């Protein structure tokens, strides 16, 4: 840093990994969260950094690994004891000191909720240290030292991006990463339109993320994996091959924080864990989702509160699996409550960049969770889905 009049910016500790394909292991889990939820959230936290570099992070269940992750309380063997709820939330070691990350398990770690302390945000910060970043004095930066509360629309600050790319260079590879918001997506290659059915007719049946952070669009009996610029090469593929036992012409789909993906069609629904059917499906929607109608248009898990929203015609329902009944008497409500959204939607998605997107016909809308209305930006929404999502 320069004099007091220095510009604010990131700081590098001085060490970094000499390799880019890093491994990690969660050797001690938190008391109050499900392991599968923690696995998914920490994978997302690592993906924050692999989205802007060629770093890759592979989870392992045995040592040796580059980065070991532990949830501990009080003194835990490194001479830097935790201090109970509040105060210090976590700490991590720079690469030269091993890169491990420790989280204070006296904290109430939460996922997708304004309560407690958001695991994803704190983990993404600590992994910045594990990669060689020090604290930034840019208050909006992820690498600022203070926890700033749950941010449903998380985006990496440019200061963080400059910092990590100063250490590991810009991203040159494609594939699963922490994508930027589609509003900044630019197709880095344009598939020949005749190869990509979605360019001719961009209307989709549904779109959803998997627990691993991949994004898929369904249309008829086929599915497409989406990268941050376009449709991934080698698609479409058959839904029945991707998710054995699943039918085509799906109405809606979402992945819940338990890491399981739910598919809806007509009066039925299926549950999958990864690509495997997770039990005896299909079942009746009225069985597993009491209060939700059949033949829905769209569904998603909203980042604002972690609850599940279903859309049909001019109405929407909110489903909270943790409540009885899961759908309050006050539902359905008019979709017009979601200011700027049309009725009769095709699909809805909370994208891995934290934004919420709605699709109808050949257009899509980006929803601003803070103003609770369609984002007012230039170029305005709705925007052509084919260009911004499918690389046409």
């Amino acid at each position: 840093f320069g004099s007091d009049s220095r510009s604010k910016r990131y700081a590098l500790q001085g060490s970094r990994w000499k390799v880019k394909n890093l491994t990690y292991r969660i050797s001690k889990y938190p008391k109050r969260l499900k392991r599968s939820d923690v696995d998914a959230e920490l994978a997302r936290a690592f993906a924050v950094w692999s989205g802007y570099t060629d770093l890759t992070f592979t989870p392992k269940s045995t040592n040796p690994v580059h980065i070991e992750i532990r949830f501990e309380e009080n003194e835990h063997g490194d001479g830097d004891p935790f201090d109970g709820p509040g105060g210090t939330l976590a700490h991590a070691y720079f690469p030269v000191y091993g890169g491990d990350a420790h989280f204070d398990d006296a904290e109430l770690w939460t996922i997708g909720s304004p309560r407690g302390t958001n695991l994803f945000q704190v983990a993404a910060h600590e992994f910045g240290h594990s990669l060689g970043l020090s604290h930034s004095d840019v208050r909006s930066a992820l690498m600022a030292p203070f926890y700033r509360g749950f941010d449903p629309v998380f985006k990496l600050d440019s200061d963080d991006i400059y910092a990590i790319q100063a250490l590991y260079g810009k991203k040159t590879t494609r594939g699963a990463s922490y994508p930027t918001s589609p509003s900044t997506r630019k197709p880095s290659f344009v598939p020949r339109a005749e190869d990509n059915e979605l360019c001719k007719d961009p209307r989709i049946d549904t779109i959803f993320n998997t627990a691993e952070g991949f994004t898929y669009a369904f249309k008829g009996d086929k599915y497409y994996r989406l990268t941050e610029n376009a449709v991934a090469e080698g698609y479409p593929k058959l839904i029945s091959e991707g998710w054995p036992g699943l039918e085509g012409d799906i109405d809606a789909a979402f992945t819940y924080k338990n890491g399981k993906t739910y598919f809806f069609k007509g009066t039925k629904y299926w549950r999958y864990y990864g690509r495997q059917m997770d039990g005896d499906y299909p079942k009746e929607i009225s069985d597993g989702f009491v209060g939700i109608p059949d033949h829905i248009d769209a569904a998603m898990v909203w980042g604002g509160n972690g609850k599940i929203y279903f859309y049909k015609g001019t109405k929407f329902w909110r489903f909270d699996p943790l409540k009885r009944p899961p759908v309050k008497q006050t539902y359905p409500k008019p979709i017009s409550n979601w200011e700027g959204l049309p009725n009769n939607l095709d699909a809805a998605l909370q994208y891995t960049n934290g934004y919420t997107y709605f699709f109808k016909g050949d257009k899509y809308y980006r929803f601003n969770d803070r103003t609770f209305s369609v984002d007012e930006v230039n170029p305005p929404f709705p925007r052509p889905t084919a260009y911004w999502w499918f690389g046409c």
Partner: protein
Amino acid sequence: IPAPAPVQKTAQAEIYLSQFGYLPASAKNPSSGGLLDQETWERAIRDFQSFAGLNVTGELDSETTELMSLPRCGVRDKIG
């Protein structure tokens, strides 16, 4: 998380400033009698206020003690 109680005493502030790299580590244990001259103390506070984007007064004012009590990362802000 219980509402953070602002850091009241200079001793706690001393521990905080040495824990996060603004004061020499010896200050972390004030009972060790590591005396601090005023200039070192004030510079440490100014450094923290500047890093945290506060008004740089060099005094342990309420805004500063309030920020010191917020949940944060345990890694030092100033590394050797």
